[in-house]
């Protein structure tokens, strides 16, 4: 299983700061799998970090040590 750390409103919507899903090969598959189990996240804006690096293309490193979904914050 892949473990994903959720932050901000994403953790609130999912009801957990950390969720586990089946392994996926790419970002598109990852999102699909997450949205299937946590549909409330589908309408949210967020960026994805793999191994503490933001990923911008539809690719994932083979060795995944950590995964995080980061929504924008704006309060101040």
């Amino acid at each position: 299983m892949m473990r994903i750390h959720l932050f901000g409103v994403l953790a609130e919507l999912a009801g957990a700061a950390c969720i586990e899903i089946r392994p996926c090969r790419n970002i598109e598959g990852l999102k699909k799998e997450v949205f299937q189990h946590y549909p409330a996240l589908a309408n949210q804006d967020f960026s994805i970090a793999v191994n503490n690096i933001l990923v911008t293309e539809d690719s994932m490193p083979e060795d995944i040590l950590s995964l995080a979904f980061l929504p924008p914050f704006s309060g101040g």
Partner: protein
Amino acid sequence: MEDQNKYHRYQRQIILPGFGMEAQKLLEQSKVLVIGAGGLGCPCIQFLVGAGVGHIGIVDGDDVAENNLHRQMIYTPEDIGRKKTDCIEDYILKQNPDIHIVNAPYFLKESNATSLIEGYDVVIDCTDQIKVRYLINDTCIQLNKPYIFGAIYRYEIQIALLNVGAAHEKTELRDIFPQKSNPVSSCEESGILGAVCGIAGSMQALEAIKFLAKMPTSLNNALLIYNTLQHTREIIQIKKTPMKVVKQDPMNAPNKSNYKPPVELDAEGFLAKLKKDHVQLVDVRNEGEQPIIDSFQHICIPLSELHSRIKSLDPEKEIVLFCHAGIRSLEAMEILSDEYHFPNVSHLRGGLVKLYHALQQKQNAIK
């Protein structure tokens, strides 16, 4: 001798390994612009002033309100109703009179962003609206200024030092959050503890001081996410993205000739709209938020659903938006005007809170 007296107040930081007199002199020669004098801006300014940053600009158009006092520790109850930047100027003059202050008692807008930012070495974003944050970011990119991002959601903090280093290393806010299609809530909507603001604003000041004093930091082109409940943190490296979403200038919108600037309504203006036919009144609060409105006809579209339910609005009709405090309705107005080019949009400034207050005052006047 004169130098020794001058720097005596900074002695405890000058003796720090990695800091010293050289760093102190660098701070003295530095110019820092703090945009936003609220929950982030107050602690940030306090520590910049304390550290001896020689020139500080403060931009904020707001007045001090009672509900600022729990987290914006520069202000006292006597300051309620005064311009925040005036109160801060008084504070700095008392705390560290050697510092040169630029008091800008108005909000940052596209029309003034370049002139406000261009004279500074570092820009610290202490605002609370994502749209303004993108404007600061874009202006910093354009003017090649280091940009310190800081933001809060409830108990979590995000801090980043952006647009620094060699050209190929420089990143920006749009590299972290490339597009904004959903609204992002402010502290007014999601709630905030003063101590969390204190931590976040202090972190922004610390990043500015380290940058100006040429000290090392792990936040160069990286995003810190700090959870104040668990005291856990992640540092995420940001990668430069080749493709970016270009901000939409409403004046360049396809229907330029029909474009009318959106309007902010006061209580009187809003009540006048209630009497008009063919006006679509839209409550953009979330379902179940109190008070429930039954005194006039309206439709409910929570701000978070505005994009998905856009077809339920008729762009040919006048649209008047409202919410609890006027923040979400302002954002909804900007979305309808800037992104969908609805030609006739307005919102209730200050929201239902201001409306009820105005009605109450009217009733008291009649009595």
